[in-house]
């Protein structure tokens, strides 16, 4: 859970966003 959340945050930050939405989670899902 923590890993998924942290990866989602990392992706959002890479996109310069302050919200993690499913769009960001989708991108980290394959590697997760």
């Amino acid at each position, binding site marked *: 859970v*923590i*890993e998924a959340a*942290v*990866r989602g945050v*990392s992706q959002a930050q890479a996109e310069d966003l302050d919200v993690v939405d*499913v*769009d960001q*989670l*989708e*991108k980290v*899902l*394959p*590697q997760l």
Partner: protein
Amino acid sequence: KDGLLSEEEFNLWNRLYRLGDSDTVKGVALPRSHFLSLQEDRVAQEPTTGIHQLSLSEWSVWQDHPLPTHQVEHSDRCHHFISIMQMIEGMRHEEDECSYELKIKPFLQMEDVY
């Protein structure tokens, strides 16, 4: 007999399949995965010229349903991934309220959490 390629097989491989210096793509690599949440010592990986970094997410548009197979079935992990992708697609345009939460909340009992 020793489990290695015979001379004939080696020549075939060398001619048809081997990637080398003359090829634009000299090899393929899957990006190394590591835990962000565990304190890991990571060596920064420089992408090597000519080594094509494979993408796990490039084809995600097609990964929302099981594609046809031949002789073997999709794995549990594959079905798992597909179902989450489908779930995400279903929730993509939700605003404020989350349908999953609304559906599951009536079943919440704190003694299960404890």
